[in-house]
């Protein structure tokens, strides 16, 4: 048995000379070469011109000049192969997830500042969560009470714990107010966009005196790759598309801060966009300005209450590319010549509209 793969492959050709309604024939195949029941065509089409619709159709001929469409017994309607409209899908990246509420001392309840390095771990993490699991993973808040001149605003605080995959991770943050009365947010990971699934220690630099107080808690919800459970959660978004965040309507539940979407743009470069929630009652669909080819994480700030909820999805989009393997119908095997063809309707073809055809079959034993 000899398998022919990519036989008479055309490479990429354009439809610049094709007018609305024209059929562009692919390479002519001598059916004497083909074992009956084994022929298919790998067809790739890019339909870019507005309103242009492309169909792939098998044709047969007795003489190589006059061609007839070959169809299945019931003469079914041929379905176009490109372009394809993809509907908006509100939860294609993340199925509905409830908002979370901040808890400013969930890891460490108020602890007096000390004038030397202070590392809290084990029982020293005495908040309601302490060393326990943080589910869903979240950023860590470091809070300070108000006291004049107590706080070190030069050296970093280091939080160590685990990420959503159970790996050890760290994050750092530096206080900015020497007199306290602030909350800073610490994310995990080298890129500073991961969440902590647990905290094992918090290391503070030496403070200026012992009159201040430190609190460690949980803040934003961080949806990492493993938490993105929509169909594009762990896959490329194809074609690249704008990302939507939908908030369910609920009076007064929403913090109006930004939601962050982190991933790759249509060129594969890092992309990071902030979407402003803006409305305390929810009921919005927020859309990124740029295109994303994947989403790797999303950061949802702490909400007013847990009645808030979010979906992350994708907008409606037109997919211009298609690739399919189309089997030849049985009727082609009774004719001497066959070919795959591309028919266009709706508009004249252009140089931006392209196709490629190649045949696969078992070669008939001689």
């Amino acid at each position, binding site marked *: 048995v000899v*398998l022919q793969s990519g036989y008479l492959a055309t490479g990429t050709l354009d439809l610049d000379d094709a007018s609305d309604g024209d059929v562009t024939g692919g390479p002519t195949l001598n059916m004497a070469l083909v074992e009956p029941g084994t022929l*298919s065509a790998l067809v790739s089409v890019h339909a870019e011109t507005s309103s242009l619709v492309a169909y792939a159709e098998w044709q047969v001929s007795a003489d190589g000049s006059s061609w007839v469409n070959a169809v299945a017994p019931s003469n079914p*309607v041929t379905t176009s192969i490109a372009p394809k409209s993809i509907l908006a899908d509100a939860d*294609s990246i993340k199925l509905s997830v409830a908002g979370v509420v901040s808890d400013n001392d969930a890891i460490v309840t108020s602890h007096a500042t000390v004038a030397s390095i202070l590392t809290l771990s084990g029982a020293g993490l005495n908040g309601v969560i302490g060393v326990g699991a943080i589910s869903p993973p979240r950023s860590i808040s470091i809070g300070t009470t108000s006291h004049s001149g107590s706080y070190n605003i030069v050296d970093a605080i280091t939080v160590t714990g685990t990420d959503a995959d159970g790996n050890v991770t760290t994050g750092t943050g530096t206080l900015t107010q020497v007199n306290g009365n602030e909350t800073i947010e610490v994310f995990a990971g080298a890129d500073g966009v991961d969440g902590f699934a647990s905290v094992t220690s918090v290391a503070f630099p030496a403070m200026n005196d012992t009159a201040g107080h430190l609190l460690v808690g949980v803040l934003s919800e961080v949806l990492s790759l493993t938490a993105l459970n929509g*169909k594009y959660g762990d896959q490329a978004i194809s074609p690249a598309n704008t990302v939507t965040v939908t908030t369910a309507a609920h009076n007064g539940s929403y913090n109006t801060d930004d939601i962050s979407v982190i991933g790759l743009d249509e060129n594969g470069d890092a992309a990071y966009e902030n979407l402003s929630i803006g409305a305390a009652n929810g009921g919005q669909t927020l859309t990124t300005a740029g295109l994303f080819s994947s989403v790797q994480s999303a950061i949802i700030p702490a909400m007013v209450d847990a009645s808030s909820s979010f979906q992350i999805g994708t907008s409606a989009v037109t997919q211009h590319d298609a690739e*399919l*393997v189309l089997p030849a*119908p049985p009727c082609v095997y009774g004719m001497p010549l066959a070919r795959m063809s591309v028919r266009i309707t709706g508009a004249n073809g252009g140089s931006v509209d392209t196709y490629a055809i190649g045949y696969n079959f078992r070669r008939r034993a001689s």
Partner: protein
Amino acid sequence: VSLSRAYDEVSGDLTGVRVGSQLEGHELHMLLVRPGTLAAMISAEAEANGLSVFASWEVSSDRATWHRCAAYNNEAETAIAVGTSGNDAAVLRLVEASQAVYGWAWARCNLRVDGIGGTALDLYTVSYVFERAE
């Protein structure tokens, strides 16, 4: 005539199979198969309410790049099993292979999940049925 039934049977549940993604079937070398005789025997029990299970065929020359097979006229696939709010029985179907598979070196039948993600209660068994090539 040598018939192969329950060839490469695999079974399990759809835990972790996300909406729009697929459970890839075993790869079958097509030179084992007499043209026109391949099908997949599929048992699918969609228990999760809103879960739809579809079968789809793919082909490959190198087992690395896989191409989706369409019907003659590129018609849409129909779900084999759909989960409802009640108890759902397993659905057994013999799904004919696309005629496109016989000119390729490798083929496989995949189960695609739509509607909602698969769970441990959503069960499947897939095997191939065909006449061996001489």
